[in-house]
C-alpha cells in the first residue's frame, strides 16, 4: 500500500519527539548534540550555535562517526522540521539511537523567534572541494577546517624538518604560515629539503618556500622573516603566533626559543634528528613541561653534533617533520592526545618508536615561575653559555 508524502510525514511525527525552539535554546552547550541536516547551500543564513552539519543525505553514513554513543541525546533540525523529522525517525527506528528528536519549525522558526544564530564563514566552492577529505573526517569537519584556515603557525627554518612541515600545513589549509630563515638554497640541501627545487639554488629559502606554498595552496598567507633568530628579535618575531614549529639544529636557539615561548605562552612542537634517529615532543606552557624541564642544560659543544657535521638520512627529517605537522594539526583542531609530557623517539634503522615520560620540573628555572617575570636578559641563557657558543663557533 502506497502512502502520500503527507501521510508518511504525519505518521513519522507521531513516532518521534518534536522539541520547540525555546527548549532547544535552553539546551545549547548542555551536552546535547545538535545536528543541522540541511544542505550546504542553505547554511549561508547561519546555524544554531555549536551545531554540527551533516546533510540529510549523509546522515546515516556519518552519524556514527560523530556520535558513536547510541544513548547520546541528539536534536536534529532542518529548514522547517520535515527532513529532521524523517532523520530523527531513521536514527531511532533503524539505527538504534535512543534519543533522537527533531526541532519543530526548523531553522526558520528559530530565526523568526530571534534566537542566536552563528554565521559560518562560508567556504568557496573551490575550498569545499580542496578540503573535502578534511570535511569528511569527523575530527576536522567544517569547524576544524575553519580553525585551520584561521590558524597562524610559525616555522623556524625552511630546511630538512621545515620543508615537509610547511608543505603539509599549507596543503591542510593553515591560513598563515610564518617562516624564519636567512639561508639560501644550496645543492646539498635538496637531498632532504623538498620544498626547494634545483632551479632555485642560490635563492633565499623564504622566497623559495613561499613560491612552492603559493603554488600548492593560494589560500595560505606566508609571512617571511629572512633573518636570524636571536635574543634581540625573538620576542618581536614569535609574538602573536598560535604555534611554533622548532627544528633548529643548535642548542642556544632551542633554549632561547623555549624561554621566550614560555614567557608568551605559545606551544612549541619540537623535533630533533641525527643519523637515523629522531626525537619529538610538544612543549605547551601551562599544560606540561618545557624544554628546560627535559634538558636542564645543553651538552658541551664537542658532544653536541649537528647533522651538518654528521649527516642525516634524507627521509628522516621528512618523517619527523610530518610527525610535527600532525601534532600541529591536532593542536589546532583540538583532536586526540597531543604529545605533551611525552617524548617520542624514532629509530629508523630498527623501525621502532619508543615513548618516554617528560615530567614538569618543579624547580625549572623558567617554567616554574610567573612568565611575566622572565626578563629579557635571561632568555636563552644557560650555565657556561659563553663558553658553549665560543666552542661551537
Amino acid at each position, binding site marked *: 500500500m502506497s502512502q502520500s508524502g503527507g501521510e508518511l510525514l504525519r505518521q513519522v511525527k507521531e513516532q518521534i519527539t518534536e522539541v520547540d525552539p525555546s527548549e532547544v535554546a535552553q539546551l545549547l552547550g548542555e551536552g546535547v548534540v545538535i545536528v543541522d541536516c540541511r544542505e550546504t547551500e542553505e547554511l549561508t543564513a547561519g546555524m544554531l550555535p555549536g551545531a554540527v552539519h551533516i546533510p540529510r543525505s549523509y546522515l546515516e553514513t556519518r552519524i556514527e562517526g560523530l556520535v558513536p554513543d547510541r544513548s547520546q541525546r541528539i536534536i536534529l533540525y532542518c529548514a522547517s522540521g520535515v527532513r529532521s523529522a524523517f532523520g530523527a525517525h531513521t536514527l531511532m527506528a533503524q539505527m538504534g539511537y535512543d534519543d533522537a528528536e527533531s526541532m519543530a519549525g526548523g531553522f526558520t522558526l528559530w530565526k523568526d523567534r530571534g534566537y542566536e544564530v552563528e554565521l559560518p564563514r562560508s567556504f568557496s566552492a573551490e575550498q569545499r572541494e580542496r578540503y573535502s577529505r578534511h570535511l569528511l573526517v569527523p575530527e576536522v569537519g567544517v569547524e576544524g577546517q575553519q580553525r585551520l584556515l584561521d590558524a597562524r603557525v610559525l616555522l*623556524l*627554518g*625552511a*630546511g*630538512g*624538518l*621545515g620543508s615537509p612541515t610547511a608543505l603539509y600545513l599549507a596543503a591542510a589549509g593553515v591560513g598563515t604560515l610564518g617562516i*624564519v*630563515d*636567512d*639561508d639560501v638554497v644550496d645543492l646539498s640541501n635538496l637531498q632532504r629539503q623538498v620544498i626547494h627545487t634545483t632551479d632555485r639554488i642560490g635563492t633565499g629559502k623564504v622566497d623559495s618556500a613561499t613560491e612552492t606554498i603559493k603554488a600548492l595552496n593560494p589560500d595560505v598567507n606566508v609571512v617571511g622573516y629572512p633573518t*636570524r*633568530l*636571536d635574543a634581540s628579535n625573538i620576542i618581536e618575531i614569535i609574538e602573536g603566533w598560535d604555534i611554533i614549529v*622548532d*627544528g*633548529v*639544529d*643548535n*642548542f*642556544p*636557539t*632551542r633554549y*632561547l626559543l623555549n624561554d621566550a615561548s614560555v614567557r608568551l605562552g605559545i606551544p612549541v612542537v619540537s*623535533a*630533533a*634528528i*641525527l*643519523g637515523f*634517529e629522531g*626525537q619529538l615532543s610538544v612543549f605547551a606552557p601551562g599544560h606540561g613541561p618545557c624544554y628546560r624541564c*627535559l*634538558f*636542564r*642544560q*645543553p*651538552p*658541551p659543544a664537542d*658532544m*653536541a*653534533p*649537528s*647533522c*651538518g657535521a*654528521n649527516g*642525516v638520512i634524507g627521509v628522516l*627529517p621528512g618523517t619527523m617533520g610530518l610527525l610535527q605537522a600532525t601534532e600541529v594539526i591536532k593542536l589546532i583542531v583540538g583532536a586526540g592526545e597531543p604529545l605533551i609530557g611525552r*617524548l617520542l*623517539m624514532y*629509530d629508523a*634503522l630498527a623501525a621502532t618508536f*619508543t*615513548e*618516554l*615520560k*617528560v*615530567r614538569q620540573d618543579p624547580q625549572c628555572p623558567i617554567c616554574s615561575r610567573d612568565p611575566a617575570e622572565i626578563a629579557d636578559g635571561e632568555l636563552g641563557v644557560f650555565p657556561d653559555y659563553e663558553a658553549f*657558543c665560543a666552542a*661551537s*663557533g
Partner: protein
Amino acid sequence: MATIRIPPVLRPSVGGEREVEADGATVGEVLASLVEAHPATREQLFGDDGDLNRYVNIYLNDEDVRVLSGLATAVTEADSLVILPAMAGGARPSLGS
C-alpha cells in the same frame, strides 16, 4: 643483565652497538658496569662529582630515574635503560656564531 639503549652520539664509545647489556642491581651499578666495559662513556655520562651530567637523562623503561630514586633506583633483568642526551639536529644554525 639489564639492557641499555645507546644513543647515536654514544655509539662510537661502545664499538658502534645500539644496545648493550650490563650487570647491576641499581641504575648506578648498571651504568658503572657500562663505564667499566666502555671507559669512553664515563665523561659523557658522569661529571667529576660522580653525578649524572645534567644534559643526560636516564630512563628506567619510560620513566626518568630522577623522579624515581636516581642512581639508587632498583633494576631487574627485565628492565631496559634508555640513555637520552639532548639532541638538536634539524635546520641549519640560525644563531650567529
